[in-house]
């Protein structure tokens, strides 16, 4: 159970962490969905060609980070509306992966390189059998562990490093940041590039986990990740918790499909309803605590 929840949570968490950095920098990127898709494609293509998942992950991270940087450079440089250019990236991602897929693999459909296994799951024999902790720590692909390490690293980066603080300053009060000699655009560009990095990993986890690239494999995860940023109150810890909430809801809906006498198609709404309930409940709780606007 816990193991499944962690699996579901990983791509949401990675993408949401990437989005969080850009939100804190004051330049929220809605192109997460597109970044995930491109990340998934590049990772699988390179892993298929080299036979090495690691090479795929690395190539995906480099490529999508660079693409995100270019996107940020263009958007900031031309002062374009980042929501609209983000939509453009999402459309480009779908079209360009289809095109690249046709050129490289001769199909715009499923790409499944021969001999590429679905990514191995690391089981830790000593811990595996323990309740809760076993599911939490054992039996996942490398991406689950990576997402936790990166969440922790990101929290430290944002709170303790100069660059991290400047990223947040750019988002909090760009004018004050400028007065203090911090160029907000520069730090926003860093943040946007970072979001590409995180989404590349989210995408690589999806395609390497299935051992195949499927058009649209991101399946809206980039959008839910955006929700997780706000549901998590724009903090790293909150984003982890929010991703977990959605993953639990999704897990329950998957399980209910085989056990409850509610039509499966109807249960697809369940994760959103649960997340909504948690979201409202948390808002009421916060209000009750007197944290007024």
């Amino acid at each position, binding site marked *: 159970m816990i193991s*499944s929840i962690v*699996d*579901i949570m990983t*791509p949401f968490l990675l993408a949401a962490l990437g989005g969080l950095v850009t*939100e804190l920098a*004051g330049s*929220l990127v809605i192109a997460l969905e597109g970044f995930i898709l491109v990340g998934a494609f590049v990772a699988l293509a390179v892993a298929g060609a080299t036979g090495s998942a690691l090479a795929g992950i690395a190539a995906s991270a480099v490529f999508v980070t660079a693409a995100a940087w270019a996107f940020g450079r263009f958007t900031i440089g031309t002062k374009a*509306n*980042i*929501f609209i250019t983000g939509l453009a990236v999402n459309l480009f991602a779908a079209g360009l992966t*289809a095109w690249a897929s*046709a050129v490289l693999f001769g*199909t*715009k*459909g*499923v790409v*499944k390189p021969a001999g590429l*296994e*679905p990514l191995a*799951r690391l089981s830790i024999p000593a811990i595996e059998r323990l309740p809760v902790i076993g599911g939490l720590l054992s039996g996942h692909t490398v991406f689950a562990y990576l997402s936790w390490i990166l969440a922790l690293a990101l929290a430290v980066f944002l709170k303790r490093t100069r660059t991290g603080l400047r990223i947040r300053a750019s988002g909090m009060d760009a004018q004050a940041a400028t007065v203090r000699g911090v160029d907000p655009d520069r730090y926003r560009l860093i943040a946007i590039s970072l979001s590409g990095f995180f989404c590349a990993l989210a995408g690589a986890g*999806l395609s390497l*986990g*299935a*051992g*195949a690239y*499927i*058009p*649209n*494999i991101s*399946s809206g995860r980039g959008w839910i990740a*955006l929700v997780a940023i*706000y549901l998590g109150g724009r903090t790293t810890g909150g984003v982890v918790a929010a991703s977990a909430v959605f993953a639990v809801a*999704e*897990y329950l809906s*998957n*399980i209910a*499909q*085989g*056990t409850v006498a509610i*039509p*499966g*198609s109807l*249960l*697809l709404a369940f994760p959103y309803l649960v997340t909504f309930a948690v979201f409202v409940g948390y808002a009421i709780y916060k209000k009750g605590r007197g944290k007024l606007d």
Partner: protein
Amino acid sequence: MKNWFTSSPSSRPLRIAGRVGLFAALALAAIFSVSCSRDGGSQAKPGSIAVFVPGVVSGSPIYEMLVAGTQKAAAESKGSTVKVLEGGTDQAQWPEKLTSLAATGQYRLIVTSNPAMPEICAGISEKFPAQKFLILDGKLEGNKNIATVMYNQREQGYFDGYLAGLITKKLVKNGKPHRIGLVAAQEYPVMNEIIKPGYEEGAKAADPAVTVDFRVVGNWYDAAKATELANGMFANGVEVVLTIAGGANQGVVAAAKQKDRKVLWFDTNGYATEPGVIVGSAVILQDRAAYGKVKSWLDGKMEFGKAEVVGIKDGFVDFVQDDPLYLKAVPEDVRKAQGAMLESVRSGSLSLPVQAAN
């Protein structure tokens, strides 16, 4: 996130921009409509065929076969041409796109494939009475411009189910519940009223104790969700899963591979997708049907107004038994039982008629 909207460019320049854009577009359009107005006069050439794909071709074997079969027939006939138009997955848009295609007047025959297409084509046929339609995977009788060919998908589901029943009976022991899985991308009439019941019926014929665990992905591409759904089934003791979820099938395969379970394929031969994991493929030979039908049209032999239903006996639905990977993956006694059941349908001693799902 709130900053997207306060940021927007001021309305005034944009309003002007809109005007400029419109004028530019109109001016360009005027120029181009003069230079490109030749389509109006041309008449449909004999042998000109359009394939309307209600979806996208890539990644959808049914539509790939539709296009391939039509193109093959056209290639064998001198002067015959094939235009492929993809209508996208939004069903509400199909009538408009198909109307545009018919309105060009450039195609003598429009070939398409989907259970919903007969009624859409019938509507369009009223406006374009000269347009002929060939619809596969659908059924409509008595429209003089439309010929349809429907596949017996009850048989198709039945034989994947029968194999699932045989394997489950063999593998599940010690009084544990006999469950088989069916992962569908979505629920739709043919799924709910023909394929799923056929699958269940076939499984029960092999193992009366079997129940079906049916789960829905919600789309045709979320492989990770399909993995989770399959894992949920495996946790409930399911040994064999039939997956009909397009690209998301890959998620079921990955899960089965890691948990050492078996997967059944639908519509195409899937053994090579994951040798040893895919243990059965109930196929539709849509390429063959498209080829044969288009060829008979090109030869002037097609009868419009007719609705055919074709199945295993006619050679358009089959269960692939001769693939070496099937021979390797499935024990001999199971293969024998499966083969005997297929033979009884071929010989006519077992009949599994199908009604059009509505």
